[in-house]
């Protein structure tokens, strides 16, 4: 059991108004929350990093629950393809900054709370300054560099980091609170090399999945504020929505952890782009690329080229590439014999990211022929060569 007392100091707590008592009566009737807990919620300040798939349910439920100050941080604008899962935004919000769209919705839901908009990217330069004013951070970001940044900033400032992450049908949730248990680095000391794990924009995600995982995060935030219950500190919750299965794994503090262990070596925020291998000097040899128009010209000129579509069948069906040979990414090394080293081979996927990995995997496996990456993938082909194809 990991029972945590309320992290909100008593001296910040104020009485509820009669209007608030009416609004929150269903909470007040719960002995675990009651007047004390609701007053703590009112006094609490929670920062939600990212107002996307996870941030949407997080922000909506925390606003509804009466968390007195909600910070929403994002630098993006609402896109049409967000609306499949980011239920805090509406069709009319397309092209608006996400934080503005979210703030409108949250104010409409609960006009009594303060919404603080941070229309910016969280960076090593601003993270400590932004986070220091909050009691809890809920992490709904979509990339490794921000995850490590949020973790480190929270450890350095002594704040709990309520974590959720999703991919396709699978979610993870935990509470990283270095004072009481492990941090994100204790679980994952370093990120995967860039491109190894596909992002949701390439791998896809079930729309309701962030709804479920984000709601679990909101649940954990509320328990930290009101105190009591059994926190996810020291446990990693794994959820598979396709199998409809929850699993739970034990997480221990890593005594060797570079930021929260016995002998920490990280005492300030670092360069997270570099840490995640995203700086050019850390990137392995660039692969050769070919632009969509150049490929078209070579094909028109009758050049012999092997065009390899590394997408899975269901994805090829969205925007098929005529004349290509389909070999899914996961089978390339096994089927290396099917390539002709004397002919150039062009690899294509949706946006030209996974195909870079395909080329590296073949190089690693000892392939000697020339390998080219179709720059920006079939979406570029649809944009620059064949307008009859959809971009997705």
């Amino acid at each position, binding site marked *: 059991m990991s029972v945590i007392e309320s992290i909100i100091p008593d001296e910040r707590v104020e009485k509820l108004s009669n209007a608030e008592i009416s609004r929150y009566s269903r909470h007040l009737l719960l002995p675990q929350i009651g007047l004390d807990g609701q007053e703590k919620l009112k006094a609490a300040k929670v920062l939600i990093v990212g107002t996307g798939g996870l*941030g949407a349910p997080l922000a909506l439920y925390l606003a509804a629950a009466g968390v007195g100050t909600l910070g929403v941080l994002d630098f993006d604008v609402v896109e049409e393809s967000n609306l499949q899962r*980011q239920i805090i935004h509406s069709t009319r919000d397309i092209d608006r900054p996400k934080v503005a769209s979210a703030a409108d919705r949250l104010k409409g839901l609960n006009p009594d709370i303060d919404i603080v908009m941070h229309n910016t990217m969280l960076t090593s330069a601003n993270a400590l300054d932004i986070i220091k004013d909050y009691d809890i951070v809920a992490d709904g970001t*979509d990339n490794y560099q921000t995850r490590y940044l949020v973790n480190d900033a929270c450890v350095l400032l002594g704040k709990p980091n309520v974590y959720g992450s999703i991919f396709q049908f699978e979610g993870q949730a935990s509470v990283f609170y270095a004072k009481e248990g492990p941090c994100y680095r204790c679980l994952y000391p370093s990120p995967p090399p860039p491109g190894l794990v596909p992002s949701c924009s390439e791998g896809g995600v079930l729309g309701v999945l962030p709804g479920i995982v984000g709601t679990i995060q909101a649940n954990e935030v509320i328990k930290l504020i009101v105190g009591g219950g059994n926190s996810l500190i020291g446990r990693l919750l794994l959820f*598979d929505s396709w199998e409809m299965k929850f699993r*739970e794994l*034990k997480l*221990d503090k890593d005594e060797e952890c570079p930021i929260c262990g016995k002998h920490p070596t990280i005492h300030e925020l670092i360069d997270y782009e570099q840490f995640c291998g995203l700086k050019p000097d850390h990137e392995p040899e660039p692969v050769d690329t070919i632009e969509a128009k150049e490929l078209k010209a070579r094909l028109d000129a009758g050049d012999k080229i092997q065009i390899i579509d590394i997408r899975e069948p269901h994805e090829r069906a969205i925007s098929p590439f005529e004349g290509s040979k389909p070999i899914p990414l*996961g089978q390339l090394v*096994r089927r290396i014999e099917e390539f002709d080293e004397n002919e150039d081979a062009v690899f294509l996927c949706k946006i030209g990211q996974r195909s870079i990995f395909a080329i590296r995997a073949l190089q690693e496996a000892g392939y000697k022929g020339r390998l080219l990456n179709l720059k920006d993938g079939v979406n570029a082909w649809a944009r620059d060569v064949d307008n009859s194809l959809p971009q997705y």
Partner: protein
Amino acid sequence: MAQVLIPTALRAFTEGNSSVDAAGKTVGEVIAAVAEQYPDLKLHLYEENGTIRRYVNIYIGDDNIRNLGGVDAPVVDTDTVMLVPAIAGGVR
């Protein structure tokens, strides 16, 4: 044979299988057997020097192998070995 649970992020490399049976006396041997069966997995699981990549946690039951002696942790046929890689999505 131990049962190895494959997370969604790695299933593209195991022909979509969410679970693979593999033999071995230690967890290192079990994972190596899985990688032998599905060579496209190797790059994802191993660093160039042959150690397991640090973004992949391995659990036997609900215990991290770090607490059980690392890749030398013994495995019996009734064990479930689980790969738990870092996923980053929050979805912009």
